[in-house]
């Protein structure tokens, strides 16, 4: 199974102007979570490759994952009031515009950032310090370095 293909097919289906059906996108999601490896036990091994526990823990904790020549950065996305979240590869987007567009499709509602508006959902993110911030204030690549997860707030809040 080719992981990078299934990842990009998931992302590209959300870039299309047609909405992915919920069942289709959840199937894609589960496909993207399967990693190919020569030994199915490889992920669980604590004694191979021969690196120290400290390095192993550091690598497990990283958010950036590299596959081939691409990087991916998966973050959790929650819609306020909805207990089950989604996971999104932020590296698949070129900037805030495409992120918002895709989120709007994924959650079937209009989402904006920056301006507070009674009608629209506003996108917020949790940064490295654990603070919740408005999406859109800092340059995109800086955002990628600091974002931990996303939350789409309800319009009434503002």
């Amino acid at each position, binding site marked *: 199974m080719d*992981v*990078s293909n299934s990842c990009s097919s998931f992302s590209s289906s959300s870039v299309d102007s047609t909405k992915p059906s919920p069942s289709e996108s959840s199937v894609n999601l589960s496909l993207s979570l399967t*990693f*190919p*490896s*020569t030994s199915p036990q*490889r*992920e669980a091994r*604590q*004694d*191979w*490759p*021969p*690196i*120290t*526990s*400290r*390095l*192993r823990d*550091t*690598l*497990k*904790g*990283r*958010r*950036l*994952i*590299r*596959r*081939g020549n691409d*990087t991916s950065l998966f973050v959790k996305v929650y819609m306020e009031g909805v207990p089950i979240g989604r996971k999104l590869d932020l590296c698949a987007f070129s900037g805030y515009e495409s992120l918002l567009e895709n989120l709007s499709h994924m959650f079937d509602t209009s989402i904006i950032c920056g301006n507070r508006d009674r009608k629209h959902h506003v996108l917020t993110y949790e940064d*490295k310090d654990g603070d919740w911030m408005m999406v859109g204030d800092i340059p995109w*690549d*800086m955002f990628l*370095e*600091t974002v931990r997860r996303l939350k789409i707030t309800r319009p009434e809040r503002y």
Partner: protein
Amino acid sequence: MNYFPDEVIEHVFDFVTSHKDRNAISLVCKSWYKIERYSRQKVFIGNCYAINPERLLRRFPCLKSLTLKGKPHFADFNLVPHEWGGFLLPWIEALARSRVGLEELRLKRMVVTDESLELLSRSFVNFKSLVLVSCEGFTTDGLASIAANCRHLRDLDLQENEIDDHRGQWLSCFPDTCTTLVTLNFACLEGETNLVALERLVARSPNLKSLKLNRAVPLDALARLMVCAPQIVDLGVGSYENDPDSESYLKLKAAIKKCTSLRSLSGFLEAAPHCLSAFHPICHNLTSLNLSYAAEIHGSHLIKLIQHCKKLQRLWILDSIGDKGLEVVASTCKELQELRVFPSDLLGGGNTAVTEEGLVAISAGCPKLHSILYFCQQMTNAALVTVAKNCPNFIRFRLCILDPTKPDHVTSQPLDEGFGAIVKACKSLRRLSLSGLLTDQVFLYIGMYANQLEMLSIAFAGDTDKGMLYVLNGCKKMKKLEIRDSPFGDTALLADVSKYKTMRSLWMSSCEVTLSGCKRLAQKAPWLNVEIINENDNNRMEENGHEGRQKVDKLYLYRTVVGTRMDAPPFVWIL
């Protein structure tokens, strides 16, 4: 025959510092043995169970500096259970009782407790230097005793230890009168750090040369610390997350420029990569760079940094640098002596970050390279042959292919010829780790050519006992042999028992050795401790009727002059 009085001979011996040389001197004659033992101040013990503290002190009563190693090397990779052994306390108790003037203690893979640290701190008035590498079993309370009681402390160097961080105030336990610190390394601590105490300590330590911070030290604190210590030579940056426009960052940039003695840089846990440029002004002085924990930094930022480091001698990095990045290293770092490339993606999802091409580029570009540890996805015999030709001066050559039985990815052949070329060309090779698809042939080459080899690590390699026999018969200087998941059994193990007298230790796990084979070995060699580690079923080995033929999970044997150890846990069976 001595034409000189003893004092003169002793004075001459003072110039002989390497423990190997001093060991040799002591064998010349009785009189030299006696002079040497009274003048020996530094002792190195490669296996803490090969000797006991009483005998050590009887021979070297003037001991000032002791190095002790405990668990076998494979303990680093979770192959040895935590309670196996290597306890420090009995050593400290014995040293304290003897009133020896201990000043330095260097430990590797030992079980250290707060109790032993407390006893250490109270027993030796002139204690100066504590270096703990890959140790465990203690907490920051133990560090607090060291800080509080060792009035002349020069070095507190904690490398890769598992320390229970009680988030206490150990840093504030250094008295105000403590101004002698030269090394302070607490990078492996996971908890919060008292920043005020740290800054005060650094400010009153004018001799501080090496400072390695943990991830709880933020950027603004780092900036203040560097202003206090512009004389710093070796810096370990903790977290490095920040806003490039902040005042702290500007202060840091200014402070870094003043650190003209800075030669070694490490850390960068959770780094914001575009701020690495703050270090560019001092990069041209750097001789050592360790970015192996900087998992969040993209290859491109690493490359930008390295391009400024023309004097680099030691580089530890993640494979996210890529083959292209290694080519930049090869063209920039002409003084490079040691390179370590660690894997950044443990799941091995078809990622070819570094390949044989990167290794070849380095070998071609760095004429002074003598030590390498290289994790990669693939290798070829042709590449290894080229590397051997480019770098015949290797002392340490360690290759790890993430899929451990992968053949040459171009020819589908085993990598025997490639490693054969390495051992044939590198006449000074002392340490070797093998990887990839390997048959008995590679061991034939190793036995034939690796005359200086002292340490060999084998995993998932070989076909028959002949492989192991080639090594045991051929490598006259072998000291440590560690083997896992390879088809070597009793025949190889028992072929030449006296060989183990010349070696420090042998480790074999998931091989073909049986319990009866190990028992026979233990019978033939009473000067050997033959340990069987059987975590899964403690007593099944004895009860089972076919016990003789049952395979041993983990075997560790080592020469010793003090017989069976008394502190082994129940799952360790000493035959």
